[in-house]
Structures are given as C-alpha cells and as structure tokens.
C-alpha cells in the first residue's frame, strides 16, 4: 500500500489505498462456561470504494468484527483483548469536488492529512502522511464524530434497529443534526457562527444540545418562526435522504412510525439513515437476511447502485455466499473467529483454496446436485472456549493432517490478493497465535 508520496498536490494516479485495516483483532466474551474467543486474531483490509464481503456461519464472529468498527460490542461481557482497526478518514476531493477525477482516482474523496504532521509524514502516521486513527483506542467524542458520519452501519433486522417510538423523520433527523448541523443552519438561512442569543439557541437546537428550558423558549415567538425554518430545512434534507433510496412519497413515509412500514421499506429507511451523511465506509450486517427474496434482490440492487454513486467502501456481512457473490468485489471467509481465506470474488468462487470455503460452496443445494448428494461439512462448529493451538477446522476437514492438530495455520499469501490460512498451501507451520497483519504485508 504505497501511500507514502501521496498528497493532494501530486497528480499521479494513486493505487487504491485501504480505507480501513483490521489488524489482529481479538474480541472475547466472558461466559458462564469460560472465555469465548469469538474473534481471535482477525486481519484484513477494506480498500477504497470496494465492497468487501465477509462470509461465515453463525457464531464465526463476523458480527462482532463488524460491531467492533463502531465499538458497539457490549463490554462486559465482551473483552477487547487486542488488535487495532486503523481507519483513514477521507474528505471530498477539492480538485473535482467529489465527482471523481484521476487525482482522487475517481472516488471523489482524498485521505485527510495526518493530524500530527499534516502531510510530510511522521511516525504517527508511519510516514504515510495521511490521517490514521485506531478506532479501538480513540476517545469517545472522536468516536462519536466518526460514527454515523464517516462510518455508518446497517443492521440485520430493520424491525428491531429502528426505534419503534420515534417517527422516521425524527430518526433520520438525528443523524443530520449530529453531523450536518452547519448545513442545516445554512439551508435555514442562519449563520452557524452567530454568537447572539438567537444564534446560540438555533445552534444548540441544530446540534440537539438544547435542554428543556431552551426547548420551551424556542416554542414561543419570536423564536418559534426560527425553529420552524430549522425544521423545514431538516425536513428537506431528510426527504432527500429518503429519495436517495427510491422511496416514493418520502413526505408521507417521514411521518410514519416503523411498524407502519413493510420490512423492505424499513430497510430502505435504515439505508437512507446510514448514507445521510455520505460516509466513507458502510458496514452492512446481514442487511437482507430478514427479508423475502424479491425484496432482498431490490435491496441488494439499491445498495450496489448507491455504493457506486457514493463511491463509499462497503463491508458486507452475510452468511449467504450467493448473496455475497452478487455484491462484493473481494470476499473474506471467516470460520470460528479466524479469517480462513481472502481473495477477489473470482478467486474465492472459482478457485477456493481453503477446505472450508470449498465445503461451503459445495454445500449450497441447486438443481445440478443429485438429490441427497450434497457434500455437507460433517460435524458442528467448535466451541470457542479456550481453543487449542490448532487449525480451527480440525475435526471437520477432509484433508486433516497431523500438523493441523498441533499447530495453527496463518493467513499467508498464495497468489496476488489471495490469502489462505491452511497448511496445504503454506507448508511451514507457525504456532504463534499472532498473525502477521495482511495490512502490513501490503505496505
């Protein structure tokens, strides 16, 4: 990942940088029966503007990985054991203003300069000169700046992930107030900098920092009209966000409560809410699992088109390989808290290397299989309580060998862009649990 001599001033076409790199992430859970190694040394990169599919079966730790990005794993019972998630914030490309040019590699955004050195490169940004924060260690306030603005998330069950008590408008307005208050105020024709009473009141409301007395004050003339202007501006923006997701008649939907909408509609609202601030990275955690096929198809279509338009990177988590095969550019296969294999879609689906990946692909039923001849992966997913230093796939693997039981394969590069953690492909075992990060490898 050669980002060293990258800066807004150079016009050389930049190779796609990783917007986020997960490095040896370890998240465990305290349970009655011991420590569950839910995520146990996971490393991967998400490249600019790509869709990375993260597949795996129930309990493989994919959701935990995803939630770790926004620090949404409840602690306790969760335990952040180690690792880092490097996130490189972006800003609109000042050269093309977001439409995409060769400077920003058609992405419309450029990396922020390093907060320490501001470009030349220092040890803080290990010489790359670009902004780089570790999502696991930054302050809560900085985290809140990133949440919903730079990184947004779509949850599995839109029915549960939307607050049943608030209208759609209220819920989308929230995220705008939180991150786009200036824009709202400008639209409403207020000066965001204004320091007089009205200005302060308006600003505090637009950033939803207003307390009850202020709210009361805002509800009486002359402030009333100002509040109305603010509300109107917000409504506009909410409506726009909804229109983005092809919701007909957004003005009607805005006033609804979640339970009045169909599942597909709810998921659209979730997406609208997630993309309202045009994030650099969108995390989609099984966004279509709760939906019917026909609805799912439309949501997938929507996500894809929006992603192409916004040029945001997407981390698409799913248990369904066929879905992943439709949306993602690259795919990472997870098993029992580890990454089993990473590669481009073609690599994973046409020449899978890891026995587990092969097994998964073979297990999907279709007309072509002879009935009763599905190649199932025997056995069940191992319990992740204090797992022994061996390949996690031991016991279910058809090619199991001695060293698989004694040592732990590491994720090693097999061909360009294709890593696999299996001794068949990387002979010499490395018993240390600590995997060299795939991010470091590409630097």
């Amino acid at each position, binding site marked *: 990942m050669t980002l060293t001599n990258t800066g807004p001033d150079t016009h050389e076409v930049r190779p796609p940088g990783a917007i986020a790199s997960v490095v040896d992430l370890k998240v465990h859970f305290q349970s009655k029966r011991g420590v569950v190694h839910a995520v146990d040394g996971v490393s991967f990169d998400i490249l600019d503007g790509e869709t990375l599919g993260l597949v795996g079966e*129930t309990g*493989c730790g994919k959701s*935990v990985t995803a939630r770790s990005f926004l620090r949404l794993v*409840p602690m306790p019972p*969760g335990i952040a054991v180690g690792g880092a998630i490097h996130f490189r914030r972006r800003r609109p490309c000042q050269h093309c203003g977001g439409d995409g040019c060769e400077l920003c590699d058609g992405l419309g955004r450029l990396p922020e300069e390093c907060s320490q050195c501001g470009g030349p490169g220092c040890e803080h940004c290990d010489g790359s000169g670009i902004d780089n924060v570790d999502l696991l260690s930054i302050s809560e306030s900085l985290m809140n700046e990133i949440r919903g603005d730079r990184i947004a998330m779509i949850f599995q069950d839109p029915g549960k992930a939307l607050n049943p008590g608030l209208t759609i408008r209220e819920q989308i307005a929230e995220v705008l107030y939180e991150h786009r208050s200036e824009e709202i105020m400008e639209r409403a024709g207020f000066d965001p900098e204004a320091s007089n009473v009205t200005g302060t009141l308006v600003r505090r409301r637009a950033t939803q920092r207003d307390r009850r007395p202020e709210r009361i004050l805002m509800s009486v003339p002359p402030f009333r009209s100002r509040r109305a202007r603010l509300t109107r501006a917000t409504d506009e923006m909410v409506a726009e966000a909804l229109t983005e997701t092809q919701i007909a008649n957004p003005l009607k939907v805005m006033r609804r409560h979640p339970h009045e909408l169909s599942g597909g509609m709810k998921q659209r609202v979730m997406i609208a809410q997630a993309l309202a601030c045009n994030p650099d990275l969108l995390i989609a955690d099984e966004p279509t699992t709760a939906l019917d096929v026909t609805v799912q198809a439309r949501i997938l279509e929507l996500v894809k088109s929006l992603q192409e338009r916004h040029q945001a990177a997407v981390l698409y988590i799913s248990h369904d390989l066929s879905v992943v095969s439709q949306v993602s550019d690259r795919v990472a296969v997870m098993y029992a808290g580890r990454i089993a294999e990473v590669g481009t879609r073609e690599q994973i689906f046409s020449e899978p290397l890891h026995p587990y990946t092969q097994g998964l692909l073979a297990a999907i039923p279709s007309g072509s299989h002879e009935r009763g001849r599905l190649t199932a992966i025997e056995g069940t*997913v191992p319990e992740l309580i204090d797992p022994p230093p061996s390949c996690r796939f031991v016991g279910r693997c058809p090619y199991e060998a001695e060293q698989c039981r004694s040592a732990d394969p590491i994720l090693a590069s097999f061909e360009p862009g294709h890593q696999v953690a299996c001794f068949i492909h990387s002979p010499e075992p490395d018993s240390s649990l600590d995997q060299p990060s795939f991010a470091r490898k590409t630097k």
Partner: protein
Amino acid sequence: MVDTAAPRAADSDPAPDSAWRVRSRRVWELTTSLFSNPTTIAGLVIVVLMIAMAVFAPLLTDANMPDPYQMPRDWETPRAPPGTPGHPLGTTNNGGDVLYGIIWGARTSLRLSLIVVSLTVVIGVTVGSIAGYRGGKVDEFLMRIVDVFLSIPELIFALAIAAVLGPSFRNIILSLAVVFWVKYARIMRAQVIHVKQNEYVDAARAIGDSKLRIYFKDVLPNSITPIVVQATLDMGNIVLIGATLAFIGLSEAGIAEWGVLVSEGQAGISSGRWWASTFPGLMVFLWALAFNLLGDGFRDVLDPRTETTR
C-alpha cells in the same frame, strides 16, 4: 451477542446414562446458580431462621397454656424496657412479653402464609389454566370475574371481607384467600395462552396425544415458573397484609401476632416506650424482605430466558 451464543455441543460433556442423574444434575446446577447470589443467600438464611423459630417455638419459650397463641400477661412488670430480667425485649402496656410474642408470632405468620398461599395457588392455577387452555366463552366469563375482583384494591377488599366476617384471625386468613387467588389466575392464564402457542404443543397434537396429557406434560411444566416466583414473594406479602389487618384490629386482641403487638405497643410510643411496637414490626419487615430476596433469586435462575442458552 447472538453471534457468539454457540449452543453447547452436546458431545462435549460425558454422556449421562439415566434420566434421574440428569435431572439431579440439573437441580444441582440450578441450586448452585441460585446461591451464587449473596442477597439470595441472605434471604434464605433469614427464612430458615424464621421457620426454625416458628417450628421450635415451644422449645424456645414455655408455652402459655392452654392456648400458647395467647400472649401471657405478666401483670407485675408491665411496660418493662428491653433488658429487664425475664423480658429481654421488654413488655407491652399490659405486660405481654415482647420476645414471646415475636417467637409465637413467627408461628402464627408461618401458619397464615402457608395456608393462604397453598389455597390461592391451587385455586388460581386451576382457574387460570381453565381460562387460558379452554379459551372462548369460558375464558371470557372467568376473566370478567377476575376483573371485578381486581377493581378493588387488595387491602381494602380484604379489610371489607374481614370486617363483615367479624374480627378473628381465621377470618383474616379467609379474606386474604378470597383476595389473592385472582393474581395467580391472571398470571397462569397469560402463561398458558403463551405456552400453548409453542410448536412443541402442536407437535404433541400431531402425535395425537390427548388434550389433558398435553396440558400436564407440556403446558403446565412450562408455565408454572412465574407462579413459583410469585408464590415465594407472596409468602412475604401475605404476612405483610395479614399483619396490617391485625394491626387495624381485625384479629382477636391479645394473640401472639406481630401486627397485634405493634398496635398494642402503639399506645406507648408517645410516652417513649418504643420497643413494644418496634421489635414485632421489625420481624414483619424481615420476614417480607427475606421472601422478597428469595423470590428475586428464583426469578433470576428460573427465568426461561436465562435457562435455555438461546
């Protein structure tokens, strides 16, 4: 996190070879988890002490014959403060020994709560089960009755009943029984309605098992938990309300009952004789508290959500 809640792979633990062994192990697991909680233990300890006190009352005191439930009167030393020889906790205005009252009061309370709880649970569970399991008109009818009963605040209802039946301890028991079954009927009905929608009930029907057997095998065992919890809590509440009724004066005067003692002592407090009502009242409080703690403990472990690793 749902994602990590991988169910226990059954093969991981050694294969048990008899239902009995599994059941006993299950009971053991529940008990251990129950007493992993300090407050629950505290509750249990108090309960045990109280019951012991009730059971061994005749040994702890020389029973006041012929009727030990009547307070003995020591006319020589009325109004004696705590620490008086022979009266460690002092005496009441008319020479009732507070300690005796407390010990035999425990017996009275145990009697009260056991009778009322067993009665109300049986009635309530039966009515609730019928309503919930049969449904339809029967349900409608029973529930309207329940509604009427619920529309009068517990204590006031009991008060009215006891008033009508006349002041006596037996009538307190009766009135409480009349008031309290409703709660169980309601809980049970809700439970049954919820449980009978489970697919294991459908599966049993698909096998062709009889409605009655399905009730006893599938519905009842899976809906009883909250009843157990509620019953535990009520072991406390009933003494609480019973004592209140007695305090108001709905039991015979002069019996060894905590509420009665408190009201007897009440007269003295203006002139500084605090002990006669303080100690018996404290007992009521401890009794109720103990069963509340225990009930909470039960709720935590018996709650199906914590039970199955779903």
